[in-house]
């Protein structure tokens, strides 16, 4: 079969899914997601083909003499298509069960399919105009999905998202105009061929604009403010797609512009990316730690993981600018590996959060608890996702973060002092991030799934439907697969890194992967086997040695209080208190304690405690700016008196002035 026919199959299935959703009749609407999953499978095959073939033009429709509507693909597009397809497949399966209770199934099905297609269009766009059209389609469709639940909170989240994403697009338009101005070509491949004509300082300007433009979509700090609002507002299958793959299109755009088209840049580009990545990952995980809303917590973790991806990409740029191509390839592999991993485990976690919310009807962790007893599969898969995101073996997060560490720590091989200092510091930041992420997911999993139900929401919950469990199960399995057999992932990433750096950087042999530069190797499969063997032998030891003692079961010690209640459990706020105290210079926490007494100071009637952290970026960067704009708008509003006569008078005065000065 021709390669393109897979593309056509994929497109056809998504498109017919979208069209069927618009037909009247609500009952069978949930089955259109089967079409979407077949479409995703078609695109996955197509993406795989693209990785191992020459760049090719898929489709070209001339609009005018200056530009045509064109889609073409190469290895980079192929990799991102594969990432999108994997998550789209699992989410489609999940959506069969998830959307059953939605009010507006038809609209959801339509937007869902078009949204996925628009993401494919972004990574396949062959020229500037096609890219911008696809990019805007993606942004607008996702805006409609964010505001899918028609309440005030979603509307506000949607507004913040729309404003932020359009500011980003504005920078992208300027960026593309600069590229066109100096090369006179609209197509990406044409611009790439002529990129040496762009002067150095203009290249740096393009680089900065690409950080702002694509960074807004990717959610780097300080452009992250829309993530923790928009992702929780959307329905969970959508937030899974948005957080798992949509923000990755920002990474795609950045790689396409700053690495592929412009070629190796000066060293400070890479250093800047490492610094941005380090700041995003540390602050992202810190804010995540303070969230008690499950989906907001996950959204902040997306900020963190984008930071980790950027650490890898930044290191790659640093090595590339000083000509160490093998190391550059290694660091790029680390970044792309984490891109794939984050799509898989963050998609899984959002789906898990969706199942929990679907069952408990609350997002607040403090109201959950004990869910693992009633939702064993969801609990297990959420645990797999949590372990993966904490980068623990044998799951996938471990491999990509290990690679990122390796590439950052190998920064000492760099020739310049700056990168010798900055790269290991990035590694240190990554270490801090990893520790905090582990703390965060101990909290997220422990508070929601373990212990006793904290409120009536968490009592009498039912396990999710079969399709939802299968959707999560696919991703959980992939977490394990990508973690144990990194060779598979290397096969699909190496064409990309070879294309950009011209070096393989890594080798894999059987269950071992090795770094060519330092000869260090890693075998997660061996780790897994060791772990299994050790736990089995421990179990055997306990069973043989411990059997002689009789086991007595009794109640937990309750300090003499007659009975234990759910309110005595560790709460999420209490669990994170130590972190809040250590980093109080960053969190700037505020707390309020209200105690009312019956007889002071012995008999307390009630205690009210509320504590929150200061949202630094909103309060000190965004609020002043929006305040200023509001003030300006208030001044302009004086013109808008509401009087018809005054408006007419404006017209008359304008006409007379034109008559006098225009002739």
């Amino acid at each position: 079969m021709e390669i393109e026919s897979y593309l056509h199959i994929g497109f056809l299935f998504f498109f017919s899914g979208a069209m069927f959703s618009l037909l009247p009749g609500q009952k069978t609407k949930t089955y259109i997601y089967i079409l979407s999953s077949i479409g995703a499978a078609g695109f996955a095959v197509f993406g795989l083909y693209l990785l191992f073939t020459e760049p090719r033009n898929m489709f070209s429709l001339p609009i005018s003499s200056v530009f045509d509507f064109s889609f073409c693909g190469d290895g980079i597009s192929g990799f991102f298509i594969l990432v999108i397809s994997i998550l789209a497949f699992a989410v489609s399966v999940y959506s069969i069960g998830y959307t059953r209770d939605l009010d507006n199934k038809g609209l959801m099905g339509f937007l869902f399919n078009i949204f996925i297609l628009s993401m494919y269009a972004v990574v396949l766009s062959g020229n500037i105009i096609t890219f911008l059209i696809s990019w805007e389609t993606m942004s607008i469709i996702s805006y409609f999905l964010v505001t899918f639940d028609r309440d005030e909170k979603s509307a506000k989240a949607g507004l913040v998202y729309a404003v932020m994403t359009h500011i980003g697009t504005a920078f992208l338009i300027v960026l593309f105009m600069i590229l066109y101005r100096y090369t006179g070509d609209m197509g990406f491949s044409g611009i790439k061929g002529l990129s040496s004509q762009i002067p150095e300082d203009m290249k740096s300007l393009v680089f900065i604009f690409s950080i702002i433009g694509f960074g807004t979509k990717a959610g780097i700090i300080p452009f992250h403010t829309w993530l923790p609002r928009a992702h929780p507002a959307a329905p969970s299958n959508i937030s899974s797609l948005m957080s798992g793959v949509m923000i990755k299109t920002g990474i795609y755009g950045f790689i396409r512009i700053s690495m592929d088209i412009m070629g190796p840049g000066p060293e400070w580009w890479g250093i800047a990316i490492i610094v941005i990545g380090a700041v995003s990952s540390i602050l992202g995980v810190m804010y995540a730690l303070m969230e008690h809303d499950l989906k907001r917590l996950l959204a902040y973790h997306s900020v963190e993981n984008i930071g980790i991806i950027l650490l890898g990409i930044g290191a790659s740029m640093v090595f590339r600018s000083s000509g160490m191509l093998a190391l550059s390839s290694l660091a790029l592999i680390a970044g792309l590996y984490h891109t794939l991993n984050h799509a898989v485990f963050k998609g899984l976690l959002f789906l898990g959060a969706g199942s929990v919310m679907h069952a408990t009807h609350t997002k607040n962790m403090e109201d959950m608890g004990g869910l693992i007893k009633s939702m064993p599969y969801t609990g297990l898969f959420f645990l797999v996702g949590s372990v993966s995101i904490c980068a623990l073996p044998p799951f996938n997060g471990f491999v990509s973060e290990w690679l990122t560490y390796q590439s950052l720590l190998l920064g000492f091989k760099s020739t310049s002092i700056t990168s010798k200092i900055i790269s290991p510091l990035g590694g240190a930041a990554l270490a801090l991030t990893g520790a905090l992420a582990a703390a965060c997911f101990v909290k997220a999993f422990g508070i929601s799934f373990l212990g006793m139900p904290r409120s009536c929401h968490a009592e009498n919950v039912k396990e999710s439907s079969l399709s939802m469990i299968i959707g999560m199960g696919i991703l959980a399995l992939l977490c394990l697969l990508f973690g144990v057999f990194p060779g598979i992932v290397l096969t699909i990433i190496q064409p990309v890194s070879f294309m950009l750096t011209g070096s393989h950087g890594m080798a894999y042999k059987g269950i071992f992967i090795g770094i060519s530069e330092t000869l260090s190797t890693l075998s997660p499969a061996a780790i897994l086997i060791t772990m299994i063997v050790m736990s089995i032998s421990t179990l055997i030891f306990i069973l043989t040695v411990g059997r002689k003692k009789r086991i007595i079961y009794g109640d937990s010690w309750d300090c003499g209080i007659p009975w234990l209640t759910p309110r005595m459990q560790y709460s999420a706020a209490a669990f994170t208190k130590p972190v809040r105290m250590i980093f109080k210079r960053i969190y700037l926490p505020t707390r309020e304690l209200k105690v009312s007494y019956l007889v002071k100071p012995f008999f307390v009637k009630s205690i009210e405690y509320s504590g929150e952290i200061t949202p630094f970026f909103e309060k000190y960067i965004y609020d002043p700016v929006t305040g200023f704009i509001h003030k300006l708008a208030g001044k302009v509003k004086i013109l808008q008196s509401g009087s018809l006569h005054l408006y007419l008078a404006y017209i008359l005065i304008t006409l007379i002035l034109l008559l006098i000065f225009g002739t």
Partner: protein
Amino acid sequence: MKNWIQAFSVIDFISVGILLAAVAMNALRRIESCVRAYTLNSWLLSLLIGIVAFMIGETHLYIAAAVTLLSKGIAIPVFLRRIVRQMKITHDVEPYISNALSLTISGILVAVVYASLKEGIFVAGFSKNVLQISVAVILIGLFIMITRRKAVIQVIGLLFMENGLFLAGFSLTFGMPTIIELGILFDMLMGVIILGMFIIQIRRAFASADLDKLTVLKG
């Protein structure tokens, strides 16, 4: 006959009549008189088109003259009078400024137009006064809209502006193709009907057709 028209500058006289009918709006106090002024204005416009048609012998201009007379000269005035009767309002136009000031400003407007369009586009076969007069009628129509409180007068002001625009277009192009003129007339007829409905609706909702009350609608 054609020589007579040339010799006595009949076209200029009729144009001035059109201008005077517009200026008269400033001094009129009753809504019915305003409608009458508009009727006069439309008839003169139709007459002007008819005379020009006779001068250059174009058939489609005769059609334009006839349609103008029928719609602007008869249909719209009748409709406006019915609205005024239905609304049962005081028949005073309630201007914001005194008649004397209103007339003065109208005069200034005409002077400004004449001063600024001194060496404008000159069309052969026509007096160049026609273009200036038409622009002056547009501005006076707008000025009437600004200074009168009643919603009906807004509509009449708009109609004056439309007449001015029609005259301006006519003086520059010797009449547009019939189909376009018919289209414009039909649009305007619809516009007036819709505006009439609105005025009645506004009166029903606010118990007044006073536009000052509409300021509460702003955001």
